[in-house]
Every structure is written in structure tokens, then in C-alpha cells.
């Protein structure tokens, strides 16, 4: 009852005091103008796949929109984006941000995986925006709550969702047909937990035995994070204990996961050197050329296959990208199946966040005196960059999922898609230049439909734990999977190896709870 009243009180106050973004922008602009500021300079650093250019161009566009609002209201202040830096490697971008933020030379805005919020916020490198989130709660209301929650760390809010993803479990339709795997309503069966990894194993084996394809399963290479972590969740395991704020090593789930890797590799359903495969020359070509029945991937594969020449056309012998129709007709997708009967299917998202450096705007005049204003403006910039149309553009061109309801609606709007295809929308010219070839390659109703169709997966979504030690644990998992696949370790030895590694590192030892044990009577495979 008490809780209800508190809730009501919050709701009322939010409705009474919440401001619209535009009001805030005008207020901040007036404040800056009053203090004699005529130009505010920002830089933005982002990273990810080449099509995710909105991660920097969104800020450019947001600046233009804010400038428009100001000039409409006769406020003589202007935002200039002095640097846009974009890198493919988001780990490296994080590394660069980390080393330069303390010096004050890092970007003011950063888009990166939400997992880095833990360490960045811990060190005080990010701006806590919870104050502004409540001030502009109307605006915040449009985001999916789960996505916003992912940006919370130790009571603060350190980012706005930029995109999210699901990790579909792709199934080749033609190969499934050859071996007699019925795909009708398979996604429902998976969702209900009726189609589990035991079935995946069965069909993979069937496929390889019948030589319908070379492999039964392909998954990512190099790292265990994020895709392979789904195994732990699919076996009902967990990675994080929120009560103690510690990572969790769920021995039973990890053992079962490694057993799957072990059995698949041993029976040659999965390449034993999977972890060392080359993305461009092996992983993607194998999938699009139909060399595997199952594939653990990401939503962004959908356009990746269209924009890059992975597919070797048997008619011409040439490599080319797939057409949207081909992708649609060849690939079926479901949730990541439950590990075993009785468990639930999962998917795992690693949402990317707009983050604001705690030193954002520090290169501007009177920073010390106007810090509050600059902070608020920084928030308003990313808020503007989260506009539903900008977010929807990002979703469609990079095949990530939108983070707000409005954006999701736009994706279903065919007219808007056509306008976007023709760049017939209100965007900064420089942004249009960058987008031109991407929209031609990706904006297609089939792709939009795909994104809408997989949106249901978000209900099953999990986030990898946001813990400073998580990258270390994930690295150990990667090494272990490699060892298991190559047959250097049996699953029980591998679990021992993981525990040994954790115990050998005092930091890990203190930050990881080891729970459960190897299930003695558990069998997988024949």
C-alpha cells in the first residue's frame, strides 16, 4: 500500500515537473547566451560495425536540431561537433577512451557496449544522468524500461540506450528441408522450451551424417562473450549475483555448455578450430554458402550478408552479397533454444549506450562555472540523438533493434522507409552524405520486417553482467572453449581449469562466487 502511494506521488510529480526536451534546450541556450557563450564544442567517439555510423552522425544531427531550436527562438548559441571518431573495434575504443578520459582529451560522447559502464562509472569517467532523466521523464518514458535499466550502475544512470540486439539462432531452410526438420512453428516450440539443445544436437548429427551440409553448427570465433554466454543462461545458470554484486560461476551450467562444445566438436558437427576461424573468409561464407544447418549469430548478420560479398554464386563463380529475398528465403530464426527440457530459451543483448564523459564540454569557456549547464546540454544532445527517427534509421541500416516504442513504430511505416531510402527526410547534409550508400544497401521492407519480427525476442533477453571483472572471466571462458573444442580438455577438466584460473587470480577469486557442481549423472550425446 505504501509502495503504491510512493509510486503515485512520483507519478504525479513527474507529470507536474517533467519538462519537454525543447523547453530544456531553450532554457539551457538562454543560460549559455546570458553567460556570453556563443559556441559549444563537442566531440564524439563511437565504434562498431561500419554501418552503425549513426553512433556518431546522430550527434551531428542532434546538434543541428538543437541549433535550429535555438535560432528559431533567437538564441545566439551554436553547437559545433569538432571531432567525430569512429572505430570498428569497440574494445580498442574503450581502451582509448579509458586512457584519455583522465587527461580530458577523450570524446565528450561515447557509444559503446553497456558492459563498460561498470568500469567507466566506477572510475568516475561517466556523467551520472539520473537527475536529467527524472527532469525529462516524459522523454524517458518512450524507452523500453529494460534497456534503460541496463545503464544503471550502483544507483546512478550512466547512459541512454542507443540500440539493442537479439541473437537469433539461424537455421538454413534448404538444409532443414533436406533432413526433414520441420520449421513450421518451430519458433513457438523453441519459445515453449519444446525444442532444446538435445534436438539441435540430433538434427545437427542427422545433417552431417546425411552429408546435407558440412557442419551442423557454426558459432562465433575468438571470444566467448557474448554469444556463447547464452549457453549458461539456456541451462538455467546465471552469471551475476545482484545481492553480493559478484560474478557467478555456475559450475553445472558451464559444465553442460562445455559438454555441448565437446560433443559437437568430437563428432565433427562443429569445427574444432572454430575459435580461430576467420570471419570474412570462413565464418560468414560457410553460413551463406549453406555449409551449416545451425548458426548462433546476431541480428546484424542479416544485413552483413547483404552488404558484403560472402556468397559465392554457383552460377557465376563470383562472390556477391545476398539479396534481401535470399536472406529471407534461406534463413529461419528462433530464440536460442533451451539447454535441456524444462529450461527456457534465451537471447542475450549487449545494448550499446550513449554515454557522456564526466568531463564533457570541459574544453569550452567558463566550464567550471557553467558545469551544470554544460552537463545538461550534453544530456540534451544525446537525448536529441535518441529521437525516434534517428534511432529507427540506425536500426534499419545496421540491423540492430530499436530501443523505443516510437522508433519501432517507424520501422513498420512503409512510407517512411521509402522516404529514408530516397533520403527524403529532414537530416543534416553531412549525415545524408554518409548515409547515402548505406540506405541503398539496407533499407528494404524485408529487412524492416525482420527487425519487427525478432522484436519479440527482447522479452527473453538477458544482459551479460555489468561487472568490472567480467571481461577477465569472459577471456577465461574463451580460452577454455578453445581448449575443449580442440580436444585438449574434457569438460570436467575444463571446468577445473576455469576454477583454477579463477582461484589463481586474487581479484577474480574475491569477485566470483563459484556455485554448484558438476552434475554426476548428466549425459549429453550418444
Amino acid at each position, binding site marked *: 500500500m505504501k509502495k503504491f502511494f510512493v509510486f503515485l506521488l512520483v507519478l504525479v510529480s513527474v507529470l507536474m515537473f517533467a519538462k519537454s526536451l525543447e523547453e530544456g534546450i531553450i532554457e539551457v541556450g538562454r543560460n549559455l547566451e546570458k553567460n556570453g557563450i556563443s559556441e559549444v564544442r563537442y566531440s564524439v567517439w563511437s565504434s562498431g560495425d561500419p554501418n*552503425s555510423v549513426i553512433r556518431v552522425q546522430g550527434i551531428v544531427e542532434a546538434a543541428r536540431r538543437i541549433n535550429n531550436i535555438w535560432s528559431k527562438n533567437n538564441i545566439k548559441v551554436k553547437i559545433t561537433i569538432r571531432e567525430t571518431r569512429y572505430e570498428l*573495434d569497440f574494445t580498442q575504443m574503450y581502451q582509448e577512451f579509458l586512457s*584519455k578520459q583522465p587527461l580530458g582529451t577523450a570524446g565528450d560522447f561515447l557509444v559503446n557496449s553497456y558492459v563498460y559502464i561498470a568500469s567507466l562509472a566506477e572510475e568516475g569517467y561517466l556523467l551520472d544522468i539520473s537527475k536529467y532523466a527524472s527532469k525529462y521523464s516524459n522523454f524517458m518514458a518512450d524507452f523500453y524500461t529494460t534497456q534503460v535499466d541496463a545503464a544503471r550502475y550502483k544507483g546512478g544512470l550512466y547512459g541512454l540506450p542507443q540500440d539493442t540486439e537479439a541473437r537469433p539462432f539461424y537455421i538454413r531452410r534448404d538444409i532443414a528441408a533436406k533432413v526433414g526438420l520441420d520449421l513450421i512453428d518451430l519458433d513457438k516450440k523453441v519459445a515453449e522450451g519444446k525444442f532444446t539443445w538435445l534436438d539441435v544436437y540430433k538434427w545437427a548429427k542427422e545433417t552431417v551424417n546425411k552429408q546435407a551440409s558440412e557442419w551442423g553448427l557454426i558459432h562465433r570465433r575468438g571470444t566467448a562473450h557474448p554469444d556463447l554466454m547464452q549457453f549458461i543462461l539456456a541451462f538455467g545458470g546465471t552469471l551475476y549475483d545482484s545481492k553480493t554484486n559478484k560474478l557467478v560461476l555456475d559450475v553445472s551450467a558451464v559444465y553442460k555448455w562445455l559438454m555441448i562444445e565437446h560433443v559437437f566438436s568430437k563428432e565433427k558437427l562443429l569445427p574444432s578450430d572454430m575459435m580461430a576461424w576467420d570471419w570474412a573468409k570462413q565464418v560468414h561464407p560457410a553460413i551463406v554458402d549453406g555449409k551449416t544447418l545451425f548458426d548462433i549469430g546476431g541480428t546484424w548478420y542479416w544485413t*552483413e550478408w547483404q552488404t558484403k*560479398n560472402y556468397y559465392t554464386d554457383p552460377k557465376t*563463380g563470383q562472390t556477391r552479397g545476398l539479396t534481401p529475398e535470399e536472406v529471407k528465403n534461406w534463413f529461419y530464426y528462433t530464440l536460442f533454444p533451451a539447454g535441456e527440457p524444462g529450461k527456457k530459451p534465451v537471447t542475450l543483448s549487449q545494448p550499446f549506450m550513449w554515454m557522456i564523459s564526466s568531463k564533457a564540454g570541459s574544453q569550452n569557456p567558463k566550464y567550471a562555472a557553467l558545469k551544470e549547464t554544460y552537463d545538461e546540454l550534453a544530456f540534451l544532445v544525446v537525448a536529441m540523438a535518441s529521437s525516434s527517427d534517428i534511432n529507427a534509421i540506425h536500426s534499419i541500416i545496421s540491423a540492430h533493434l530499436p530501443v523505443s516504442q516510437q522508433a519501432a513504430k517507424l520501422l513498420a511505416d512503409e512510407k517512411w522507409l521509402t522516404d529514408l531510402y530516397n533520403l527524403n527526410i529532414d537530416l543534416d547534409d553531412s549525415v545524408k552524405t554518409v548515409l547515402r550508400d548505406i540506405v541503398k544497401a539496407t533499407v528494404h521492407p524485408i529487412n524492416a520486417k525482420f527487425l519487427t519480427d525478432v522484436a519479440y525476442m527482447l522479452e527473453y533477453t538477458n544482459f551479460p553482467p555489468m561487472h568490472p571483472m567480467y571481461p577477465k572471466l569472459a577471456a577465461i571462458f574463451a580460452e577454455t572453449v578453445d581448449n575443449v573444442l580442440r580436444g585438449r580438455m574434457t569438460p570436467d577438466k575444463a571446468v577445473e581449469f576455469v576454477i583454477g584460473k579463477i582461484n589463481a587470480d586474487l581479484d577474480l577469486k574475491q569477485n566470483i562466487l563459484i556455485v554448484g557442481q558438476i552434475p554426476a549423472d548428466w549425459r549429453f550425446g550418444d
Partner: protein
Amino acid sequence: MVTGDVETKGRIKEIFYLGVLLALSAPILVVFVLLVISSFGNQMATNFDFSAFRFTLKNWRLLFEGRMAITGGVRENIWLHFLSTAVVAGGVAFLTTFVGALTGYAISRIKFKGRKILLLSMLLIHALPGSVLIVGVYFLYRVLMPQNLVFIRYFSFFYVILARAALEVPLSVWLMKGFFDLLPWETEWSALVDGASRFLVWRKILLPLIKPGIVAVLIFGFLAGWQDLIYVRTFLIDRTLATFIESNLETEMAYMPLLAAAATFYLLPTIVFYISSQQLLFKVYAGGIRR
């Protein structure tokens, strides 16, 4: 000047030696030739299966547009990166050579206390790993850096050049010392008797005489600065070609032939530099560590 064996050997034997050498060099040749081929292709040429390989100039076109992606990608000014790379490389080259020439001269030619210790430490500090030093160097950077962003940008160039050149100083001091050791004393004395100060002798008389050595040390410094990744990434605000390539070399999403083009582009100046100075390099090493 002697350049090799006396001519007592048959042609066949020489061809045999050459054959052995080329066989030894084969892996290097293969990988670099494949890299250059890839830069003109629609895919990486890694094995000798060229069935799906098509010649294209697209990679180079995209590169000069400053895009590291076949679709999408943010445009970057690659010439600006080229310029900052050149500034860093040039700065490192200049500084390494300057310090090497000064200290090498002093160690070779001036009697002073601690002369041996200085030369000794020039060898010993070579044992200090860059990966260890960089943490301390970062600490100092943090302490020394100015607050104003415009200054920081210049300062970052200045600092990265200093820090990177520092790593090359031991070698350059040794090389320069060896080179000064070879110069006749009379030339120096003559100028001193004529009324020149040591500094003037160094600058006007001796430096012109070790020009080959200077050029070679310059080139080594240049290559070191041109190549550097970790110092540049940690300290420099602007990007260089090295950090630009490195940050786009992400095996999951990168379009590799484009990177091959970038890599080839990146290699070109160093190769041009080397070929134009090859003879000099060998001369300086000859002098460099003579007893």
C-alpha cells in the same frame, strides 16, 4: 672499398647461394606479395586459390576517400592522418638524431667524468621494457600536461615525439658515437686551433662529415616514429595511420582487402625511404659499432 669476396668463384656457385637465400626469403616475399595483391582484390589473397579473386581499384578509391568500409563508414581525412604520422615520425627522427649526434660526439670526443657510465647506461636502459615504462611515462604526462585543449593538442605531439624518441636514443647514441670515432682528430683540432668552439666544430665541421650516419639515424628514427602504435595511441590526441589502421583492423567486421590497401599505402613511404638510402644504412652500421 671492399664489398665482398674476391672473384674466384664460378657463376654457378653464386647462383646456388642466391637460390638458398631466396628460398630462405620466400616466406617474407610470399606474405608481402600477397598483401599487395589483396589490396587490388575483392578478397584477401591468402592461399593460391584465385578462382573468386577479381581485380579492383575500389579499395584504393575508398581508402583515399578516407573510408574503411565497403558500405557505410565514417569519412576520415586520411591525408590528415598521413600528416600527423609524418609529424610524429619526423619529430622522432629529428630528435633521435639530434640527441644521438650531441651525446655520441661528447662520448666519442670529450673527456669528462662519468663518460663511461653514460655509455654504459645507454646500453643498460635498453633493457627497460617500453611496456613497463609507459605506465610511468603516462603518469608524467598527466602531471605535465597543460589544461587548455589547444595547447594539449600540440603538447601531445611534443610529448609523444619525446617519449618515443627516448626509446630510440640508446641505439642512436651508440651509432653516432661509433661514427664520430672514425673521424680524424686533425680535422677537429684544425678547426679548434683556427678559433672555433667545440660546438661550432661539431656543427660546422664534423656533422657535415658524418652526413651518411646522420641520414641513416634519421631514417631509423623516422621508421620508429612512423610505425609506433602504443605510444601514439596512448598519448597523441590526433590519429596517425598506425592507429587508424589498427582501430579498423577488427577481424569480425573489417573489410580486409581495404585494410590491405591501407597497409600497402602505409608501407610505401618506408620502402621508398629505405631504397633511397640503403647504401647509407650499411655504412652507418659499419661505423656504428666499430671497436
